[in-house]
């Protein structure tokens, strides 16, 4: 007898296999949880992979204090529903210096996210961390391994990665060294949406179109999520029907004008779309090959 597995079933099965390998072969794993759609799918798969047990690792949210309010609500709801432990880390240094996306540009991402993540991993002694990155997101990620080895100072050396054959992953490492694991490596943005639809995965409502207060600035359509948003002279928030393809710090995340208020409508829009999802991310445009530089420094 044969049963033709759909591509979503094969992708899900591969992700489950990867997660179980990590749990079986590492002492202290953690799952990076950024509350976005990829994290939502990763968390959903983790719950399936270890059911009826709870996933045997905590969730880690590296917070910048500048996420959308709806993301914090979703984070707390999913923590309750999953029954898993949530660790929230805010870089105390960035907090003390009042680092924010309006005044500090790329330093904001460096300190809150890159440094914050490294601090949290070291502080808790995690030897392996799941991340929701996908190879289709960006050129330098196309070469990332599923098990990505990091030196004791958390650096990624693209020229010295372990070959990955078949589904045999090597997670052996010396003390202090760690691995980042990307169970969604082979998923595309469309796969993520199709999976969210077919599995009814809860997502932050900002992914669905609604009328929200916005301003247009530097080519991005920004949402005015709270009173910390600094309006420039002449700027007045305008209500527009918008949604987000990717979620990060709200002053840095561009929306798209859309009327797609349901998952099927989003998928239909995706099939017709003409820009990549990272186009709405301010941080990627800083300099040529900017993602690769961030990765080498420890950004996920």
């Amino acid at each position: 007898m044969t049963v033709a597995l759909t591509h979503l079933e094969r992708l899900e099965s591969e992700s489950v296999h990867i997660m179980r390998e990590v749990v079986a072969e590492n002492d202290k794993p953690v799952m990076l949880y950024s509350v976005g759609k990829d994290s939502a799918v990763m968390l959903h798969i983790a719950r399936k992979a270890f059911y009826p047990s709870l996933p045997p690792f905590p969730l880690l949210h590296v917070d910048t204090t500048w996420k959308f309010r709806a993301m914090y609500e979703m984070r707390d709801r999913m923590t309750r529903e999953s029954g898993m432990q949530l660790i929230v880390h805010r870089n105390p240094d960035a907090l003390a210096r009042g680092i924010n996306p309006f005044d500090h540009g790329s330093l904001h991402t460096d300190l809150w996210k890159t440094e914050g993540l490294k601090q949290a991993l070291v502080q808790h002694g995690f030897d392996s961390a799941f991340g929701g990155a996908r190879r289709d997101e960006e050129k330098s990620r196309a070469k990332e391994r599923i098990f990505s080895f990091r030196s004791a100072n958390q650096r990624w050396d693209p020229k010295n990665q372990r070959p990955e054959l078949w589904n045999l992953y090597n997670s052996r490492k010396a003390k202090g060294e760690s691995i980042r694991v990307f169970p969604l490596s082979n998923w595309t943005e469309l796969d993520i949406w199709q999976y969210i639809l077919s599995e009814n995965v809860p997502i932050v409502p900002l992914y669905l179109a609604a009328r929200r207060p916005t301003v247009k600035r530097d080519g991005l359509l920004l949402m005015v999520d709270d009173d910390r948003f600094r309006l420039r002279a002449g700027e007045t928030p305008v209500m527009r029907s918008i949604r987000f393809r990717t979620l990060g710090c709200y002053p840095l995340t561009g929306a798209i004008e859309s009327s797609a208020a349901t998952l099927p409508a989003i998928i239909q829009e995706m099939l017709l779309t003409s820009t990549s999802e990272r186009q709405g991310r301010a941080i990627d445009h800083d300099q040529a090959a900017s993602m690769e530089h961030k990765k080498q420094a420890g950004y996920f």
Partner: protein
Amino acid sequence: MSGASGQTSLLRFITCGSVDDGKSTLIGRLLYDTKTIFEDQLSALAADSKRIGTQGQNIDFALLVDGLAAEREQGITIDVAYRFFSTERRKFIVADTPGHEQYTRNMVTGASTADLAVILIDARKGVLTQTRRHSYLAHLIGIKNLVLAVNKMDLIDYDQSRYTKIVEDYRAFADSIGIRSFVPIPICSLDGDNITTLSGNTRWFSGPTLLEQLEGAEVDATAAQQRPFRMPVQWVNRPDLDFRGFSGLISDGFIRPGDAVRVLPSGKTSTVARLVMMGGDLKVAVAGQSVTLTLAHEVDCSRGDMITAADNAPEAADQFESTIVWMADEPLLPGRPYWLKLGTQLLTATIHTPKFQVNVNTLEHLAAKTLGLNAIGVANLSTDKPLVFEPYEKNRGLGGFILIDKISNATVAAGMLHFALRRAGNVHWQALDIDRDSHASLKHQRPRLLWFTGLSGAGKSAIANLVQKKLYALGKHSFLLDGDNVRHGLNKDLGFTDADRVENIRRIGEVAKLMTDAGLIVLTAFISPFRAERRMVRGMSQPGEFIEIYVETPLAVAEQRDVKGLYKKARAGELKHFTGIDSPYETPENPEIRVNTVETSADEAADLIVAYVLRGFDEGTGAKKV
């Protein structure tokens, strides 16, 4: 792009070609024709094409797939990159591997997960050395679906007879290495001929187009479902005392509740009770699915075991013939223990001296004592425990393995098991009526292996000789193995290369083991420079029996003593591979005894070692400083 349903299948493939065959252009073309490239990527591509492209003012598709910044400048790709596109019928994952000197390692990596390989040929050049190499590797790694894409047809004016000649040349070669079938397609990836639609330039060609072939090929997972059930156990799921589930990815066959299964290596049988899934149990699960199942009986089963069809289980063995693809800068050391990972089994393996190495360009068999980076060879290997397996040719999941260096933790090789040399089940150690304890008690002593290690001239033999005299005086039976009685006899065929040093120590370890079985206190005095081999001998010994004695003498002091004049010769370049000069010495990390010969005389050291040996071990752990 595929529809909204998600009801499409998945095909993974690899493209093989040299730098100039248009491989990146072909992948770029597939992404473009399936509308996978977005406008912002396209405008970046157009700008890049003008700046660093090779197609003048036209779009250089190759730039889409050449990734890392360093590579963009050099115009080459370094590693395996994965690309994604989809059509109405299928989602595709393409492994793109570069065509330069790291090729073997990268192509084998990319091919290991591929259902299909596209072999690219430049129509002007025909079947080249590289074509043969790519085809050999694709066949070696077990890819059944091969497409021969004859590219750049525009540059030979779409000439049918030249195309036919290339296909015939290739068929002759393919037959010679055992490739049963392949699908030839004339294409021009720059202009898109026969990629998604049949080209008006090749009216003599009736199809299929490349994309049709990719959409129609059978995937490996479907074929695997028709074999007997196998599931390597990854993880035991125990939320509480009432539930005990076994989680794993089904590699072959299918399973339903009520099916009889056998757990390997124990051989115990049971039946499947449930296929547990969040949201509701499954009625059936097939190869390619990750599941958690429960059994009707309490059966011992843990990670590394395999649950299989009860009436058709694979065998276990501990000696195999295998093909090995070496992937590390440090060469293979025959005899050195490596970790071997196959499925979820992790055990220790040693590789014997290769039978031959394959020249991947000419496919000739060459004599070899080791395998270097990117070398492919056939060698026997032995494992320390029985390994449940199937020949790679029959089953990629149960026959493919990786080797991991025990010190650096790097993945150093990939391998494929051919067949077992003997079944582990048939090997029974002769049960001796007079066992090792009887020998030892007759001598009123406990067997020990005193392993002296240190630089040449450190004083190992001198101290070992004294220890032996003192033991003799106390009525203890001992034997000293040193260079004089081993290098001239048992190991006179071995030199001083790294590979020979490993084999030297392995043989000494085996001899020492027989002698301790006979109840003796064995002393060895060899430089034994590598941690891995000392650890190997320790692993062969009974717990507590192996006593590592590090005779610590600074290189400068040993060189100054230079009792045998060897350092002088090594410095003069007359002696190669001399430890401390042009060959490394790896300091013991946790020796039982450490002797500093600058502070301690040989006689004092010998007294302390004898006291340690006769007192036994009960008094604390850690290195004793002498």
